[in-house]
């Protein structure tokens, strides 16, 4: 029986970049590029109309930026997996994108094989596909703020571990025998100590710097 192909939309404002990415993806028999967008608004339209499995999303686009596209998709609850493919490795782009629940963040230096592997991975539901340069950047930001690594209490580390496992506050509270309110309090403290703004950022950082197991 034929496996269903991974349906991909490429959103990038540069035609040559889209052409190149498309050519890369054409090497994979299990991937089908079903649409291309040159701005954020069109990307949203295509996601709504074509229901792709994966959206390859540039960050700097006209009309609507990549982060805003990802946020709107998250708000609609569309099942499309978002994989950023960006020139930039700035903190605001990376954190901004990953905190929307996006599955990964690749930089454009990546070779075709890596992009193909990442598309396959995120289509299967894998998270945290980041380029080596992005991972190094995340690590250095945390190293610059070492309190994130050293100041977490044992209890906070336990909560963080559950966050990495994708548990909700209610599930964490139930598992640890503490109230949801207490979980929230622990999370506030964790975010503050790690210098992050959301559970996804905390989870990504925690895995990247080895605070908890993957």
């Amino acid at each position, binding site marked *: 029986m034929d496996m269903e192909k991974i349906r991909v939309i490429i959103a990038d404002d*540069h035609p*040559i970049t889209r052409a*190149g990415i498309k050519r890369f993806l054409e090497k994979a028999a299990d991937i089908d590029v079903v649409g291309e967008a040159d701005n954020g608004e069109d990307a949203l339209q295509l996601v709504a109309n074509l229901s792709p499995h994966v959206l390859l999303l540039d960050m700097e686009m006209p009309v609507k930026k990549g982060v805003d596209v990802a946020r709107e998709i998250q708000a609609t609850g569309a099942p499309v997996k978002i994989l950023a493919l960006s020139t930039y490795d700035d903190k605001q782009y990376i954190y901004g994108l990953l905190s929307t629940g996006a599955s990964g963040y690749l930089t454009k230096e990546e070779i075709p094989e890596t992009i193909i592997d990442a598309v396959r991975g995120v289509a299967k539901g894998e998270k945290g596909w980041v380029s080596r340069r992005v991972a190094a950047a995340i690590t250095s930001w945390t190293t610059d703020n070492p309190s994130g690594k050293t100041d977490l209490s044992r209890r906070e580390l336990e909560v963080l571990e559950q966050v990495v496992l994708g548990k909700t506050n209610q599930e964490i509270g139930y598992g640890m025998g503490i109230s949801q309110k207490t979980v929230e309090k622990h999370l506030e403290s964790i975010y503050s100590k790690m210098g992050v703004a959301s559970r996804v950022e905390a989870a990504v950082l925690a895995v990247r710097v080895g605070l908890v197991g993957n």
Partner: protein
Amino acid sequence: MSIRIVIVDDHPAVRMGIRRFLKKIPDIEVVGEAGNGTMALELVDELKPDMLLLDVELPDIKGFEVAKRLHEKKSQTKILAISAYSDRQYILGMLTNGAAGYLVKDDVPDSIHQAIQSISRGTWGWLSPIASQMLHPSGPPTV
């Protein structure tokens, strides 16, 4: 005889995209690709291409410097800068360091063939529409 070209860009997807556009043009042959400035200089030495399609923002040696070094060596390889940036300083920086033309990436699909042909015939100062607009907002059209 075909125009022999080396593409220099740190993004493999961009190199592939440019290749894709050039493939449609019969008198052009891509003979090499480089992902950084050092490799670009080595390839020019080794392959002596007719033209270098040169990105400006490279990870090691910037495009300005690559162009300058080739110019100082009196290299016969002509340089067409290709960049996502249309800032005046980028355009002038490349042209003053020896590039014969400046093509903004958004203009590639429509203009790349004309750019390569013009520069290979000896035009200097070729600008794609967006670059031209930046240098001459109300002035003369592209060369």
